[in-house]
């Protein structure tokens, strides 16, 4: 069985994110990129599957930020091959573009399962997996928390999460794209000595992609959450409160 894990790096919010002088994008100098959390879970689920059934796990990552560490970490966890996708883009493109890039990379390759994180901090509506499945003309299941193989490698049984603590078990005909919500266990720990060992000999393949089409949606303004003024509490008799409210309204020129 062949499993592809598609990942991207996202800004590390612990280190803080600043907006650049155009007010339309994140300042690339302020960012450190880390592997998107649910992509990390997708990798873990792939490695768990490999431990249960003979499989080959290949991870493909976009080239935003420092990716080599992440790819070496994947090899240390059990990936068989890691590929860095050269896009030449400085910042993360939109999900439509990411999906097109992933689809073009997978063109002509044969995978039974294509796993990716169901969402990322820049993709809270979780559209990437569905878009990719659309471009590849494959079935898609999102919010997956468990994957088991059935009937050789022609079918998978997946657990999908629903709101309110509900879950459903679905049969999916393979090949298919799965958006992983969480692996069956938290992503495993790789001791740093093991990681450093892998780094010495790791072979990271690179794959060029053709320049993606221009984005069809443009960012007009990017801004941090605006802090509110806080609340003003009124006290006194109803008459006093009423006159305070009227006073405030006229002070703010909301009434004449």
């Amino acid at each position, binding site marked *: 069985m062949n499993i592809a894990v598609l990942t991207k790096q996202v800004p590390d919010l612990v280190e803080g994110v600043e907006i650049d002088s155009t007010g339309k994008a994140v300042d690339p100098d302020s960012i450190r990129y880390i592997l998107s959390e649910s992509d990390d879970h997708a990798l873990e689920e792939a490695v768990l599957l490999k431990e249960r059934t003979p499989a080959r796990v290949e991870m493909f990552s976009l080239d935003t930020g420092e990716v080599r560490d992440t790819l070496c970490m994947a090899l240390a966890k059990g990936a068989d091959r890691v590929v860095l996708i050269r896009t030449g883009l400085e910042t993360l493109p939109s999900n439509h573009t990411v999906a097109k890039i992933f689809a073009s990379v997978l063109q002509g390759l044969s995978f039974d399962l294509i796993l990716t994180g169901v969402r990322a901090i820049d993709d809270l509506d979780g559209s990437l997996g569905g878009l990719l499945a659309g471009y590849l003309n494959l079935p898609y299941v999102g919010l997956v928390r468990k994957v088991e193989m059935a009937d050789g490698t022609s079918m998978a049984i997946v657990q999908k999460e629903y709101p309110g603590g509900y879950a459903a078990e679905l049969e999916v005909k393979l090949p298919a794209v799965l958006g992983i919500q969480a692996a069956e266990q938290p992503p495993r720990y790789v*001791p740093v000595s093991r990681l450093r060992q892998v780094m010495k000999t790791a072979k990271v393949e690179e794959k060029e992609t053709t320049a993606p089409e221009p984005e069809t949606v443009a960012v007009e303004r990017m801004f941090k959450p605006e802090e509110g003024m806080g609340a003003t509490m009124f006290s006194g008799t109803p008459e006093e409160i009423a006159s305070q409210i009227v006073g405030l309204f006229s002070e703010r020129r909301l009434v004449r």
Partner: protein
Amino acid sequence: MGVAQVPPLPETPGPLFPELASAEEKFRQCIQCGVCSGSCPMGEAMDFAPRRAVKMLLEGRFNEVVESNTPWLCVSCHTCAVRCPSQLQISDGLFPALRAAVMAEGKAIDQDLQKALQNTYLYGNPMGISPKKRAEWAKTAGVPVPIMSQLRRPVDVLWIVECNPSFEPRGQEISKLLARILNALGVDFAILGPEERCLGDCEWLAGERGLFEMLIERNIEILSKYKFREIIMTDPHSYRTLLKIYPFLGGRYHVQPVVAFLAQRLDQLKPLLKKKLNATITYHDSCCLGRKTSHYEEPRMLLRAIPGVKLVEMVQNRESSLCCGGGASTIYLDRYIQERVKDRLADRRVMQAAATGAETLAVACPFEPARFEDAVKVTGNEQKLIVRDIIELLAESMEIA
């Protein structure tokens, strides 16, 4: 009975039990007297207490020991190592090796510990806070706290603040007070600020050898950029590691814990201790200032110098002091340990403190205020006992708190 020398780290990490392979001959000198198991405050809860674990390992029963709860219950109080007649490095050698073996085999480790290790790898502190924020506390210290990279000149004293005193709220308050004390004494000092990273004591004892080596390499590189006469440290764990382990990897410094540094300046400090505290105080010897580095007297000298202080001792003090239960990364294993141990060490220690009749439990380790205050509540001593760092007591008497 002296503190045994810590053995050097092996050159290259092997696949399984690298330390034991090189230390096996040494461990063959174990006479199976059982002093370690009898002294171990966690021995009762371990599947295999230290004596038995050593015996099993020498018989080649590695897997049984590695898969038991034994590796993760050692709090590195060091009592076994200090008392061992064969001077075997049980808490510093055997236990980190067992933990390293668990990790090398790819076995799952406790999630809280994993998070702390991952954070330390990414951000240089177990809390997972941006290193840029390391000197935030200094902004409200009320006195100048120079940062080495901005100072551009040699200093007398480089103060390595370490993780808890940089990031934890209570630790930050204590750091501010220490900055004021240093300022009042006219000490020419500076901190590393955003360049500072964890020194790696917890990581080493947790068996994360590679992470420890990575931190050491970085810290030695940073320290080599600056000129200073000596280093002072707020965290005894890091102090012990910088003093005793860094030299094996090329980092040799003149380093002291803050309590020793201040005790040396007692003549200068005494006239500043104006306010009478009228308190009966008992002092908790932390493992790293006590058994591991033998600073038993300086903290007591400082406390006795405060007007109105009556110092009383707990039943277990100095060499036989009872650990708070937070060493060797077990500060991140509280949940794991609580499921396996009936009486937590911090609770037992606080009961000892309460039994002295003291109303203040004085500490000199940044792990203690939170651990003991929690224990004070759990044991129902909330109205009877308060936990205070020696720095807080000094600052109060100096009227700069």
